[in-house]
């Protein structure tokens, strides 16, 4: 008997009991949708981490000033700028694990150009800022040595600023007024896109010296700075260097080991680890659900197939009387259980896609669907169908023609 004929006969008997077939595949449906969701969550987390590294650079620590609340009163983040360029030099000298440091001062202010008006964050920093933050140039160039040293009024702008001030026109060599001070645009950065919190492309970078002289002289007097991005030479040294920076900074700022520091170190890797960890916990949970429901689903299939074999004993006898071999009967019932589990597989994939779509829309979790998970679902559900359908099918095939025919 050909496969096409077997499938034709199988779908006939399944269709005569469609509700039963679908209910039987419920376990498979839940199992498969869990598998798909699980894989997507894992892949999504990995993708998000990769993207974050892409955006913020890897192996970076952020050192920021923070008002020390010795008297139990927080003065707010901006009230004190405890970090200085001297701190930066000291860190560089004392900790060889530090590959580079980009200092930063910043302000939010009005930008005027081309008759347009836009509020943007202006950063004063060095060329290291671009390398450490993984910024690429769409157009134009970095700062030149003499521009950095002389405090030239040159600026590099992000995509969002370009869009709002110049539309699609090239901003290079145009003049923009930052807080009424004219700057010449020398570079345009590649787009990075937004995070949940901020539009990274809504940015303007000018040389540190220029910023301190022309824009934030009052806010950051002397050699005060807002923060620094510290690049560590290797990821293994990241956590050790974080501790070393803490020690050095406490020494520089004369803060005891258990005193409240006037700075804070942000370790981005920590955040990423937490993100990965939570998706891992979720995946384990889903894997458990998937495993249990696939087994329960398999037993459900076995159960219903045993019932089917009993119900159709006489029919099996009739088929044998007209020439069905054991193999024909075995295949017929195996294909039926395979079809039930594949129905479950397909509905499970549909449900899984729904869940993935819903979760990523609703919770703003990044979920990435890969084709492997679809292939895996089919492999899973079909092997469940074959494994758990085998015993009932063999039971049917081993019937004696005359006993089956006489069965009432």
């Amino acid at each position: 008997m050909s496969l096409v004929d077997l499938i034709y006969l199988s779908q006939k008997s399944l269709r005569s009991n469609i509700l039963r077939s679908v209910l039987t595949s419920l376990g498979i449906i839940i199992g498969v949708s869990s598998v798909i969701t699980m894989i997507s969550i894992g892949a999504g987390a990995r993708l998000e981490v990769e993207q974050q590294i892409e955006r913020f650079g890897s192996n970076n620590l952020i050192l920021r000033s923070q008002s020390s609340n010795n008297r139990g009163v927080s003065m707010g983040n901006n009230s004190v700028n405890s970090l200085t360029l001297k701190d930066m030099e000291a860190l560089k000298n004392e900790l060889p694990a530090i590959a580079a440091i980009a200092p930063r001062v910043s302000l939010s202010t009005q930008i005027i150009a081309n008759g347009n008006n836009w509020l943007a964050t202006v950063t004063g920093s060095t060329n290291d800022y671009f390398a450490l933050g993984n910024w690429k140039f769409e157009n134009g160039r970095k700062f030149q040595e003499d521009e950095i040293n002389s405090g030239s009024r040159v600026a590099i702008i992000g995509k969002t600023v370009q869009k709002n001030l110049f539309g699609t026109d090239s901003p290079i060599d145009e003049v923009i007024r930052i807080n009424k001070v004219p700057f010449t645009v020398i570079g345009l950065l590649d787009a990075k896109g937004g995070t949940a919190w901020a539009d990274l492309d809504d940015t303007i970078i000018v040389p540190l010296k220029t910023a301190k002289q022309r824009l934030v002289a009052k806010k950051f007097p002397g050699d005060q700075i807002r923060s620094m991005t510290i690049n560590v030479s290797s990821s293994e040294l990241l956590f050790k260097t974080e501790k070393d920076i803490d020690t050095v900074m406490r020494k520089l700022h004369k803060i005891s080991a258990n005193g409240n520091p006037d700075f804070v170190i942000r370790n981005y890797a920590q955040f990423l680890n937490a993100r990965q960890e939570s998706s891992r916990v979720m995946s384990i949970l889903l894997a458990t659900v998937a495993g249990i429901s696939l087994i329960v689903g398999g037993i459900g299939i076995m159960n219903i197939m045993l019932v089917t074999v009993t119900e159709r004993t006489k029919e099996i006898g009739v088929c044998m009387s007209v020439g069905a071999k054991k193999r024909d009967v075995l295949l017929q019932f195996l294909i039926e259980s395979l079809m039930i589990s594949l129905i479950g597989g397909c509905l499970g994939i549909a449900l899984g896609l729904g869940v993935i779509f819903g979760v990523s829309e609703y919770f703003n979790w990044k979920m990435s669907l890969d084709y492997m998970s679809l292939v895996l679902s089919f492999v899973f559900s079909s092997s469940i169908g074959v494994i758990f359908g085998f015993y009932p099918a063999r039971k049917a095939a081993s019937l004696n023609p005359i006993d089956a025919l006489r069965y009432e």
Partner: protein
Amino acid sequence: MININAITKEYIMGDNKLLALNEVDVSIKEGEFVSIMGSSGSGKSTLMNIIGCLDVPTSGDYFFRNKNISNYNSNMLAELRNKDIGFIFQNFNLLPRLNALENVNLPLLYSGKNVKERTKLSMEALENVGLKDRKDHKPNQLSGGQQQRVSIARAIAGNPKLILADEPTGALDSYTSLEIMKILNDLNSNGITIILVTHEKDIAQYGSRIIKMKDGKIIEDKKNVSS
């Protein structure tokens, strides 16, 4: 065509043995129309099932077309039933989910014929029993006589040499019974060997030979002069 030597069929029910067939000898030639009669429980169906290779005897030898069936395995027996033997049952035994044409198709499916060939053969068989226009009807959309005709079509679709009919008219009224017997008679005229089990004397008269059984033995076996 059929040579049966000292075939015994024993059923063990708890402590006592039951001899359904007791050293039966019989041989049937190609083209014969044999009617088997006998009281209920005399072993007629048991003999038919053994002849039809649905059941195996406890002891004795069975030669079908000069081949010893006793040492055939289940696949070989299935093939024999598929190619050489057609069954007609008292209660029709059609598959309820399949329509008439698909039911007739069934033996051809197992013999691996392609769609074109088997549709042709099945349609011919249905035409032979006069049910070509009912090919799309399910068994529950057919009368008893029509169902039996479909099952005859199924039995003859694969061009078997032997047809076994165990009380084919047992569930039918006398008029419909005559229709069925006419079809069997025509098949026999075309050279198909027929073995028929019946309780009715006038139905048995269609046979060219009548065998009577009692308590698992053949007690009478003679030519039917009136046929």
